[in-house]
């Protein structure tokens, strides 16, 4: 093959000379690309304003000249607003770190695996310094991952990254740590005065119940969220009632209280994620005795819960569940409405801006030969009070 390639090079170089003038014309247009990337990002979304500061801050070493770096970013798609925010983050990181070339690309829809493969091939052909990748399908890109390892091009995963990628092919991944994100919901619920009072008012003779509704017990993200919430909630409550928390419901999470149970946490995982089962599961949760709070670990759980409460109307003032404190996760249109109307205390959303920002930051570090490790891109808590703030509003995509 090498010999063939040399022959090709000879013929091509002849062609190249012929076409040089053509290129000169084209380069006139190409050169104007740069100022756009350099444009200082006048954004309100200060990435440093993160409460749980992400461990490594690669941005700190911006003294390095990155203007020669070429870092293609290949997302899963474009059609969700989520990706637009990821893109914004990636662009801001590239501008702040002075990356010479950062192109954000992705197939038109998340079923176009073949288009994404073509994109990765095109990226590899540029011999870039690093590639950021949110793979649609790991198997479909295995050959490309091998090629990148062979060419010594570091690959950084982002969002869901490249699940089950071969050892060593992905240098690091910038993604949401679901456990931390769900723990945020437990903290915020305990910060709510009414909820805290309800918990504190519980006794061993008259225990209260808090429920977690999860769509399944198989996907890593949902398991992480369920576990993250339970661990944090237990920790916070046991500070008040040592040994007083009993976790019941799904076997995977169940844990009896070491002392008399004062607060029961009931984990409900319906048999299937179907809408009907989720609704029935939510109804079962609502019939729990002394139910004071509910955590819904994803959009499916939220939908099921709203279906079981007459589209949330039963949570309204003066209705059956008016005093119930509900926290959600994700940000679909119905959930956002429930938060806005004050039916939910609030909800946790991932931070796509940080996903894009940290992915590029990791790629820059990897391209400069620095050691990199996975980054938690954090999560945000939104309520009816802050959901219109610009830095929150851009995160709660539909």
């Amino acid at each position, binding site marked *: 093959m090498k010999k063939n390639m040399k022959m090709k090079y000879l013929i091509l170089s002849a062609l190249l000379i012929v076409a040089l003038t053509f290129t000169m014309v084209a380069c006139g247009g190409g050169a104007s690309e740069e100022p756009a990337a350099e444009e200082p990002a006048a954004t309100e979304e200060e990435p440093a304003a993160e409460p749980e500061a992400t461990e490594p801050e690669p941005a700190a070493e911006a003294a390095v000249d990155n203007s020669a770096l070429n870092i293609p970013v290949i997302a899963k798609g474009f059609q969700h607003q989520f990706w637009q925010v990821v893109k914004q983050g990636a662009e801001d990181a590239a501008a702040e770190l002075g990356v010479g070339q950062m192109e954000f690309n992705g197939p038109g829809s998340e079923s176009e695996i073949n*288009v994404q493969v073509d994109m990765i091939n095109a990226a590899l052909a540029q011999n870039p310094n690093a590639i950021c990748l949110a793979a649609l399908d790991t198997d479909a890109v295995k050959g490309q991952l091998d090629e990148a390892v062979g060419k010594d091009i570091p690959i950084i995963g982002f969002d869901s990254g490249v699940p089950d990628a071969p050892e060593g092919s992905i240098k690091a991944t910038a993604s949401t740590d679901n456990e931390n994100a769900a723990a945020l919901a437990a903290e915020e619920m305990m910060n709510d005065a009414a909820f805290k009072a309800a918990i504190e008012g519980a006794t061993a003779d008259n225990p209260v119940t808090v429920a977690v509704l999860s769509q399944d017990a198989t996907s890593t993200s949902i398991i992480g969220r369920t576990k993250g919430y339970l661990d944090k909630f237990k920790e916070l409550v046991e500070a008040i009632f040592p040994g007083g928390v009993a976790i019941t419901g799904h076997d995977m999470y169940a844990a009896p209280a070491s002392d008399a149970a004062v607060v029961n946490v009931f984990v409900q995982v319906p048999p299937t994620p179907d809408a009907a089962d989720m609704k029935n599961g939510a109804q079962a949760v609502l019939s729990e005795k002394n139910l004071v709070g509910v955590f819904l670990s994803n959009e499916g759980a939220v939908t099921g819960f709203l279906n079981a409460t007459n589209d949330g109307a039963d949570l309204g003032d003066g209705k059956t569940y008016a005093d119930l404190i509900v926290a959600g996760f994700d940000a679909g249109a119905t959930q956002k409405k429930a938060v806005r109307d004050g039916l939910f205390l609030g909800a946790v959303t991932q931070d796509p801006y940080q996903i894009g920002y940290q992915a590029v930051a990791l790629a820059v570090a990897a391209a400069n030969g620095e050691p990199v490790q996975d980054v938690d891109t954090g999560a945000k808590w939104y309520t009816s009070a802050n959901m219109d703030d610009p830095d929150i509003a851009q995160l709660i995509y539909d």
Partner: protein
Amino acid sequence: MGGKSGIVTNEVGVKRFDLQKLLTAASLVLLLVFFMTYGYFARGLDIASFSVNILESAYYIGFLAIGVTFIIITGGIDLSLGTVMMCGALVGGTAFNTWHLPMVVSLILILVTTTLFGLLNGFLVARLKLPPFIATLGTMMIAQGFGATIANVQTQRFPTMADEGGWFKQVFLRTQDGVPVGIIWFLVLFVIAFFLLNKTRFGKYTFAIGSNAEAARLSGINTQRWLFLIYMVSGIFIGFAGILYAATFTTVIPMGGAGLELQGIAAVVIGGTSLSGGSGSLSGTIIGVFIMATLKVGLMAVGIPQQLQTLLIGVVVVLAVMMDIYRQNSANRIKS
């Protein structure tokens, strides 16, 4: 009168056609040179992998286009190309993953599936005399639904190169060392198709049916039988497209493939084969295929987003069709 003017048209057609082919070939070279120089100097493009990328994008579109060239020359059309290819790949994937058949058998099943769909198209068009557009619109959906049903709507993953059964990638696509062996299959099948179209009765009748099916029938050609065969042959080529698709992209999603037929047809049209039938060439089709592949890979390599790529390729297709119409009009003018 019909015969005579037919000959005149043909001669004019052939002359114009050669000029057009020259132009398309020239624009292919221009495109390649442009993307390679611009990519190399402005973006540090690796020319070797760029070329391989173009080849690998050309394989499956190429086989679709070669097959449908025969059909288009008969004055027909096949809208089911893309979904039939995917259906074949899904059947092959299911055979390998779910039925645990050896890879060889799975690959043969891909060919069998697409050939059967070719036969179905042939039956609908030749025997039942359905208009090809409508008939293949139907099979397009049938293939989509059938493939998804066989695969139980599960995404089918072919083995990667290192896995068991992954040898087929090394045979059809590229070796472990990166030698693009797919080009051999491409050349061999192209030569076979070229021979079929230009040196055999099969090819002669293909043109005859496209020029004037009634005249062909009156001169003793069993048009029904040949049309049937033509659709079947196209099905075989679609099968190879399916194998190459599976080798290139590994993962095949159920209900996909709609839209790919247009890439194949566009390549044929760019290559100068007339949609009204009776004239066309496989060398033109190959040039068209490489123009499509170069545009796809090249625009991507210079950083044009996907939606603009599609837009630009659409413009190229419109230009190609305009050339086709212009050619016909001027041919008609000379005739009258």
